[in-house]
């Protein structure tokens, strides 16, 4: 993994930080001159991952969420969202479209589906009681300039 540039942003699991995480990613990606669609795809995927950490990882408690964004060689964007929350007991089930543990809060169960379809690659590592790390990658189209 040849890293051209990277940032790390750490925030408490407050829902107001969902938009802060999106803003951080948008600012970092300006240097790549992404298309409107690429930027919107990545922002949406990051929003889903951070929201999962806020809503599920630290349910009834609070903790820190770490967002890492890297620009790799050949215009590939690497995103990692890491928490030290409750972990996911069954990752395959959590990734099923429309599966949610919080229907009363109107969570649609589409977070992972959005991440999967808006990014090229998605991986989820989780250990119960230890936390979850979501890693995503997306290669941007060659720059026209």
């Amino acid at each position, binding site marked *: 993994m040849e890293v051209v540039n990277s940032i790390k942003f750490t925030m408490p699991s407050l*829902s*107001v930080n969902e938009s802060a995480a*999106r803003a951080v990613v948008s600012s970092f990606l300006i240097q790549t001159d992404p298309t*409107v*669609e690429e930027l*919107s795809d990545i922002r949406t995927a990051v929003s889903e991952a951070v*929201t999962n950490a806020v809503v599920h990882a630290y349910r009834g408690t609070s903790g820190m969420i770490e967002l890492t964004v890297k620009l790799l060689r050949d215009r590939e964007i690497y995103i990692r969202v890491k928490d030290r929350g409750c972990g996911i007991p069954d990752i395959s089930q959590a990734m099923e479209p429309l599966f949610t543990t919080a229907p009363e809060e*109107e*969570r649609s169960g*589409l977070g992972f589906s959005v991440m999967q379809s808006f990014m090229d690659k998605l991986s989820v590592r989780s250990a119960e009681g230890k936390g979850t790390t979501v890693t995503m990658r997306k290669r941007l189209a060659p720059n026209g300039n």
Partner: protein
Amino acid sequence: MKVDISSDRGAAVAVLSGEIDHHNAKSVREELDRYIIAAQPRSLAIDMGRITFMDSSGIGLIMGRSKLMKECGGILEVRNPQPYIRRVLKLSGIERIVKVN
């Protein structure tokens, strides 16, 4: 996040402005539900033309209001989503349940 509701002979339009995420969805949900329960409109159109961002929290918001409108004998529709919002709507399959114009 801003909500403007107007109504003409039982047909209501709610114009939403700003970003719909998990943080913002709660206040919008409360405001729309208060209106639906009090006014019992026969139709409610959620106008998304001024929404600048929406993740899957918006899908939960639309589904929930659609259900409440149905319970109150009315119908919900979604208007003017920008292309990037339309992609989230499409992915969710919500267009099978709620009319999107």
